[in-house]
């Protein structure tokens, strides 16, 4: 069995003259919760569609659970549970009928169908509303039902595209709790496409950030900042915002104001801290404190894509 649930090598996808995904290399280990982050229009949904063989890559190759989604699309789709950004539930059918249909499509035996549907409805707290038509459901209930549907056949790989999009804060918490409980179940790989950084930070053990179809960075969400770009927080006196541009800082060091006397410096190596402090002192600036810091995923994300968000 492959160690990797998903392997993409040089994957690109073009629509007309526009490249939605460009030269993407990605590996998602089995049993991990992998966050696929990017602003709207970054190519996340296109990537999800390629993973399950709905779209062919223009160039490059994709392997999902050791299979080629283009040549073995049916097998890949049978092994994956998918929830797209538009959940797509049958409004004229009840919650029970929606799940029963999904169980039939997943080719479960009649006994398994009933058993799994009952379990899924209880798990997402929709048991009491099981015979109600979906047309009367709130957005939160629909998302939970969509999640239950994606899980109905106990898939090896769960692919979720913006599972909390459009939800109110209370429902975001509920759906997120569900995701956390799913993540704790051993063996299942979750590929979570989202633009909600808080969600990724809470749920994922690895994240990739893409923008305009290009992969910017991959790593653990809590270490992206410190591992990718070493950062220190400084307390300085005798310097106003804007003056940092006139400073002769060592090469590869960026200094940015955080407000008041607080500043943040990014550098290629934490060892550069010493030369930074020397340069600041040499410029007549008082250095009161220097603290190596872990940059939050949100800060890292905004640094990477914030200024160029289309």
């Amino acid at each position, binding site marked *: 069995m492959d160690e990797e649930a998903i392997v993409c090598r040089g994957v690109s996808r073009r629509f007309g003259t526009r490249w939605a995904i460009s030269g993407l290399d990605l590996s998602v280990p089995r049993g991990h919760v992998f966050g696929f982050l990017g602003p709207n229009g970054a190519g996340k949904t296109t990537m999800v569609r390629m993973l399950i063989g709905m779209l062919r890559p223009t160039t490059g190759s994709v392997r999902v659970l050791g299979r080629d989604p283009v040549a073995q699309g049916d097998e890949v789709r049978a092994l994956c549970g998918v929830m797209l950004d538009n959940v*797509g539930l049958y409004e004229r059918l009840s919650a029970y009928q929606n799940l029963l249909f999904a169980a039939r499509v997943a080719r479960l035996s009649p006994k398994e169908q009933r058993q799994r549907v009952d379990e899924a409805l209880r798990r997402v707290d929709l048991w009491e509303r099981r015979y109600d038509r979906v047309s009367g459901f709130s957005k939160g209930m629909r998302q939970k039902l969509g999640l239950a549907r994606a899980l109905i056949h106990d898939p090896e790989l769960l692919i979720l595209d913006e599972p909390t999009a459009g939800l109110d804060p209370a429902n975001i918490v509920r759906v997120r709790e569900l995701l956390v409980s799913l993540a704790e179940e051993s063996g299942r790989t979750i590929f979570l496409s989202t633009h909600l950084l808080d969600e990724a930070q809470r749920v994922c053990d690895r994240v990739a950030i893409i923008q305009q179809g290009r992969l910017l960075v991959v790593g653990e969400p809590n270490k992206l900042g410190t591992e990718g770009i070493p950062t220190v927080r400084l307390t300085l006196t005798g310097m106003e915002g804007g003056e940092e541009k006139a400073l002769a800082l060592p090469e590869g060091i960026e200094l940015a104001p955080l407000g008041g006397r607080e500043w943040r410096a990014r550098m290629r190596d934490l060892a550069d801290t010493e030369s930074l402090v020397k340069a600041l002192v040499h410029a007549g600036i008082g250095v009161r404190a220097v603290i190596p810091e872990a940059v939050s995923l949100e800060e890292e994300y905004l640094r990477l894509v914030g200024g160029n968000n289309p």
Partner: protein
Amino acid sequence: MNDVRAMVWKEVAELLGSRRFLWVFMAAVLGMGVLPALSFARQGERAIAVVGVLFLVLYVLFAAVIVVANTAPDLVLHERVGHTLEYLLTTPLSVRAIFGAKIAVAAFVGYVASMLSLGVQLVAVAMLSGKGLHWLFLAQADGRVIAFGVTAGLSLYVAVVGTFVALRIGEQRAAYMVTVFSVGLLIVPFIAGWLHLHLTVNWVSHAALWLGVIAVGLAALGLRIFQREMLVLYLQE
């Protein structure tokens, strides 16, 4: 086959939950059943005999066309609007199973509607003429072939056209109009003089058979054109 069964189950459950479908179905069955009977009663048996009792079988065909031309596009458009077609494409279901089931269900409900309207016709004519059960065109062999055979072929043809038209035209009324127009196209060879209508059992049997062949041919062509990726691209538009 299990995939098609699952799809058929879902389509039937959805249709039974659609008030619009139930209205169209009832209206077609009652309208196409009662209208010819009223005409029969007003003009009398002699007038009907002059026009030809086979004229009345057209109402049975109309019932099928009305129901199928509404149902087939609706089965697809409903999925497009509700984003459920995209969900179906994420499942192991083949495109053939998805649309094959839709075509089969649309054709079947159209055929059932036409048979029910035929039943309503017989009962209504019997009641209005006061002569017990009146068999109308069913007394003639060519009438029976048209009522049962041509209706089946026409239902299948309209279901195929309506299903694939709805994949390209995203609006219910427009899809309905184009589907009905496709039925009108069947008259062109007669108007152009390429074909001549002969109300013989042999001729109408062949007509029913050819309608079925054309429908199956169009369905095969449609399934060849509308691959999974093309459907995704249409949904993206």
